[in-house]
């Protein structure tokens, strides 16, 4: 099955858009679950860019990096969500604006 010839700048632009959205979410949300989601979006954007580049050079490497990013995301989310549970238990809130005992 043949793939589609898509202009690179458009795929990369999509990746850039998703990346910026992720950052926007990161800056905007106070709830740590949403922050983790934003993180996922950013990682996904990077993965998209890798796959696109791999498709451009017709190499398997892009997809392999994607695979690695996938495992990275999985590991980060696993630890991150474990942390969320603890935060909910200790702080009684997920609002990261409340968690600012460390400062100065």
């Amino acid at each position: 099955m043949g793939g589609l010839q898509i202009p690179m700048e458009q795929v990369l632009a999509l990746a850039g858009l998703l990346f910026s959205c992720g950052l926007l979410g990161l800056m905007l949300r106070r709830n740590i679950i949403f922050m983790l989601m934003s993180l996922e979006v950013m990682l996904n954007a990077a993965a998209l860019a890798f796959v696109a580049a791999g498709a451009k050079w017709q190499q398997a490497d892009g997809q392999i990096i994607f695979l690695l990013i996938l495992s990275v995301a999985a590991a980060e989310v696993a630890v991150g969500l474990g942390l969320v549970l603890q935060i909910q238990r200790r702080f009684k809130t997920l609002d990261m604006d409340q968690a600012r005992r460390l400062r100065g």
Partner: protein
Amino acid sequence: MAGIWLIPFFPLASAVLLLLSAGRMPRQLAAWLGAGSVGLSAICVASLVNDFLADGQVREVTLWTWMTVAEFTPRFAFYIDGLTVVMMSVITGVGFLIHLYSIEFMWDDESICRYFAYMNLFVGAMLLLVMADNLLLLYLGWEGVGVCSYLLVGFWYRDPANGKAARKAFVVTRVGDTAMALGLFLLFTELGTLDIQPLLAAANSTWQVGDTLPVLATALLLGGAVGKSAQLPLQVWLPDAMAGPTPVSALIHAATMVTAGVYLIARTSGLFLLAPPTMEAVAWIGLLTLLLAAFAALVQQDIKRILAYSTISQIGYMFLALGVGAFASGIFHLVTHAFFKALLFLAAGAVIHCLHHEHNIFRMGGLRKRLPVVFWSFLIGSAALAALPFTSGFYSKDAILLSASEVGGIGLWLWAGGLLGALLTGIYSFRLVFIVFFGQAHTEPDRQPGWKMSVALVVLCALALAGGLLALPLADVFPAARAHEASHAIEYISIGTPLLGLLLAYLMFLGRQINFDRAADSIAGRRVRGFLFSGWRFDQLYEVLWVRPYTTVAHWCRNEPVDRVYNAIVASSQWAHHKLAALQTGELRWYATSMVFGLVLLLAVMLRNAT
């Protein structure tokens, strides 16, 4: 001998151990560790001396090169020749005796641990100073002994006066040290090395006798030497430094550290020989200092201050010797002086110790029978100090006076001055003996010196008596001295002068044939006495000349522009700190935002430059 590095290692390691124990070591252990480490060093030195006297070989030991960055390769290396061996023997030998003595002297002090830590540190630093193969390591030892001196003068820091004395000693010697550091920089930039032997060789090949640069360099080094050795015009700190425990005065402010200046000049004698004007200055400084200090010693009442002035005076003799090119004689006097002055200080310490910390000689008296060991020690020490015949001091001082007399031109003046000094030395040293040990008792001793003190005193007595017979292995170090061809007249005068001083002292202070008191109590006499008592009013002079203008300027600056600049720096740093710290809100969203902001900024810079 392979383990040369052990010699400074023992005291340094012991100092580290003692410091680390932070005063919790049992005093028995602390004391014996402190004294024992120096003893071990002394044994190593003895073995080294033995080897050295057998083969006379100069030993160069490179422990390691500190680092190699560009041409700068400072090394931890030792250079052991006759001069070094002599100095090491004095430091460890006399040092060990004083440590032994200290065990008893300091036994009741709560900070005995700290005391021995500082003392060991001092011995280690002093050994580094004399063993150093390069001027950088020498400077390290130089500063090390300075710090130890500061710590030990202010050892009883609870009394603010002691702290003040310590500060004075430190500040005054810093003045000299700064000059010396400048001298080192000058030498390094001009000659490209700080290793002493290559440096002397390079100096000899690049400079002619009488060039300006060697004069300048040696003058700067002389500044350091003058500060450390308490010579004119930086002699003011030494009498006050007597605030420390007496064994400290014996070790640091009489036997070893204060002679570091003499050592420095002797060590770099090759350089000084290229600068005749500096040599002449050294001689004159020595002469003036020895006279000035001798006069001041005549009227003091504190037993330790008298000895302090006599130390300044005797170091003046050493400078005089160096200045006339009789380096070996100077070092010889350094050695004998170390013996008899340590003896005198320790004996004085014993008196003070046994008279519950009485310092004023007019409240002593009649101790001859009550403290016999101390009396004989003191008597022998004074005899050596006054250079009575057949004591060690006689041989060394005689050599100096002979050398001075043989210099053409100014030599006669130097000789006459030295002779006057010798007369005065005889008077003040026996004034001390007569007042303290004869006549009426004013204070009763409450204890007798124990065996540790007595052993130290007896051994030093023997050295003070017989030290003049030592033949120091200095022939290869210095240019050969001319053979003395002094006329008998000069010999007799040299022998007779101290005896005359002894006689005068007897007449004035014991026999009362000359009524010194009446002369002294007249108005003019009192003036003169006050003048001399204050050490020729140098403190007052410096107060007016330096301290007061300095504090005035400092006061003036407190609210004035100079200070405002400093305040502004501090204030702006603090302002910046608060502004920056205000960014640390602890708010995660803000942190993320700032990161994105940074990223946007960096990308903007890139895009600007990429297109």
